[in-house]
């Protein structure tokens, strides 16, 4: 999984790096084109247009039935029920294309999330670095130290919270930059990235121990070794606001896919 993630990181880095001079909305306009371009052949080859057309006709028929027999309560309710039923059927016809589209789309969206959904730690601001043990630990407070490169300051001694199996430090960002923090915990060394910048950049709030699922969710940084006693190392980045659980970049991307779809549907021969 890490090999795939490494390739995706490199690809995302190259693509988003090439677009970094553009404002966020322009990047989303470009990416919306890429997303639409990926979606089109999948739609063309997997979307059952005949089935979808049949459901659409049945919806129209049910609506017509409601209008025609609006003085008969039973017929009206049956019509409403059929509208719901056939709408469900129409949406169901989208299931296979969506499932197939999610395979290439999921990593794109995950990387966009880690690129655009977090606010950067600004110079002068603080953040919290946490190392979480996978299992309860006997023997008191672990021997732990953080070494930060110039540009980042470690403000507090290690805080040990046994009940949460956590070690935590407060860090202060002094200068913009991409940093690698070095942690020495119980004789083992670990690293964790920290981005001090307000610009869009790949940020990794959590570096998990190697496991398929967590690596899929947190691909922005290589995982900790699978035999690590630590479950994860986290750096707190504030999440940007969202509307209806969708971040701003998601809405912009969605907005731009509409004109791209309208432009590309004829060349690709896609109907919905």
């Amino acid at each position: 999984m890490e090999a795939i993630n490494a390739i995706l990181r490199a690809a995302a880095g190259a693509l988003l790096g090439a677009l970094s001079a553009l404002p966020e909305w322009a990047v989303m306009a470009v990416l919306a084109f890429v997303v639409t371009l990926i979606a089109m052949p999948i739609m063309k080859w997997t979307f059952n247009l005949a089935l979808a057309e049949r459901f659409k006709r049945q919806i129209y028929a049910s609506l017509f039935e409601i209008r025609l027999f609006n003085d008969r309560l039973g017929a009206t309710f049956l019509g409403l029920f059929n509208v719901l039923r056939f709408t469900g059927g129409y949406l169901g016809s989208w299931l296979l294309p969506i499932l197939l589209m999610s395979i290439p789309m999921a990593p794109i969206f995950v990387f966009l999330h880690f690129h655009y959904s977090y606010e950067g730690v600004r110079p002068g601001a603080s953040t919290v670095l946490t190392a979480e043990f996978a299992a309860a630990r006997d023997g008191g407070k672990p021997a732990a130290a953080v070494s930060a490169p110039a540009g980042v300051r470690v403000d507090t001694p290690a805080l040990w919270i046994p009940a949460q199996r956590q070690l935590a430090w407060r860090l202060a960002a002094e200068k913009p930059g991409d940093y690698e923090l070095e942690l020495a915990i119980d004789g083992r060394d670990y690293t964790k990235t920290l981005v001090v910048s307000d610009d869009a950049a790949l940020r990794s709030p959590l570096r998990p121990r190697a496991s398929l699922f967590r690596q899929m969710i947190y691909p922005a940084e290589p995982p900790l070794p699978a035999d690590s006693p630590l479950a994860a190392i986290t750096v707190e980045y504030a999440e940007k606001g969202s509307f209806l659980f969708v971040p701003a970049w998601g809405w912009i991307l969605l907005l731009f896919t509409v004109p791209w779809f309208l432009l590309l549907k004829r060349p690709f021969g896609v109907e919905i």
Partner: protein
Amino acid sequence: MRRARAATLGRRILLAAACAAMLACGGGHRETGQQLVVLGFDGMDWTYTQELIAAGRMPAFARLQREGTAAPLGTSVPPLSPIAWSNFTTGTDSGHHGIFDFLHRDPATYFPKSSLAEVEEGEPGPCFGKYRIPPTDEFETTRQGDPFWKPLEEDGVESWIFRMPIDFPPSGLATRELTGMGTPDLTGSLGEFSFFTSALFYDDVSSGGKVYPLDLWEDRAEGTLYGPENIFLCEPAKTETPLTIYFDPVEDVAKVVLGESETILAAGEWSDWVTVSFALHPLESVSASVRLYLRSVRPEVELYVSPLQIDPRNPATPISTPADFAALLAEETGGFYTQGMPEDTKAATEKLFSIDEYLVQARITAEEIEKQFGWALDHFEDGMLFYYFGNTDLVSHIMWGRTDPEHPLYDPAAAEKYAGVIPGLYERADELVAMALERLPEATLVVMSDHGFASWRRAMNLNSWLRDEGYLVLKDPSLAKDPGLFRNVDWSRSRAYGVGFNGLYVNQRGRERQGIVDPSAKDALLDEIGEKLLATVDPKTGGRAVTRVYPTARYFSHGRALAVGPDMIVGYAKGTRGSNDGALGELETEVFSDNTGQWTADHSMDHEAVPGILFTNRPLGRPAPTLTELAAVLVEEFGVEGFPAVTPGS
């Protein structure tokens, strides 16, 4: 009356769009080719400034004095900041702008009430389950009259007004405006801190905040931070968010988790701004920003949480013009205290903060304001910039008297330790003036203050004096402890009473609910009381306690606001001030007492004893001897005539 409805998201978007459109169109402003920068240092004293200039400790002020003008600036009656700044803002006196004290009174109940801003409570809608359609409460400013930036803007001159006192809600008339003194915290109060302790036994504080217990576990302490009242609930209750403090078994360091925010603090450290959300209902929450101070981890866990600030990035009610200006400032310079008087003097007077802790907190507030001042100087180009600094006043209140050998609280060791605090304040003000001179070398610079300062040694309870002189009669004179708020006063036999620091009211028939003094007899009664007050001698000092009295109907201009204020203002002798208890209608056995509180200095005395300052780097068009005359002179610099300039006592 200006009003501000609690802003909804949609309304804020509309406002932002309108402001953007206004800016895009230039807002109708003209290039004046002039920069007029007015720096207002609250409570900067003329005599003390002169002493420090003479000692060579204020070189920028010395330069102004040498190359421009310098003079004492006549203050308001009484010399209290809300009145003084309102005098400056409107060019009128209390008779017109209607601010007479920090406290006014309700003639229907005799109860004191804030003079700074009022909340007009709306009618709540119907309930749906446990929720209801909330009432549309509105803040209203009590200050009447037009601010001096209104005619400037009407003439196309840009005005930037930072933290002008008694300008909440924002007037909406300036190009850029950030509200100041009078801006409440998120709960609607003037600033209520929360202090958490794991101690089994603790004393609560009487005002300014509340002490809450922490439940102590092996590695953590848990409590609840309370927010504003949830107006969406049919059964009103405070919003709340959980607070957990995880502490290290060895080191004095802890992780403070407040709702979804977490920060790590060592004992004795202050946090940066932390955003806290309080859920109103499943789809909406209100956010506040707070600073945390982890006072100790051992032997007790003690955490101070600042008053809940209206979050400048997402204000629950407008605190700036345009509405998103506060957010812009926060983006550019970082989070900041939005409440009007950010220095937590209450934590100091309630002895929750040591003096050292208070000075650290006051310094934090000052640094934020100074950082924004730098931003303002860098971005201001044309027109008028007013910038207010309150630190000089609120630090002086706590610290000024400590170096006064005649002050009851005087301790030589403390006096030596804190000898540099007040001079340090003035030197910092000097640095800010130097910064303005350097960054805007072509600007006309005006440096002013609203009043001076004096050590507050003796307290006089005006209501106790009125009782002893037979003007205020008690229902039960044998009560050992007065219940306060005039609850033991027999209004059917009382002719006068005091509310606020300097206000004296006649119990007038037809105005007060149980008034007994005929309006035609009022002037004679006031003359009689005035003569007696002027003859009153403090038995400890042997000096007069009152050096001036001001019957308001004769002293102030006859504006429509006279009716809301007191009938007479008492000008205490320098060193004496009305007592805190007396201001709230509580009587004490003795009329006079030593001031042994942490609030060691004041200015609410005879106005001639505590003048402010006026320095300029070049002569203005004409002299401005008093606050009420200054604004008109300033707007005339842009050729705008006709702004009011009331001569005090005329």
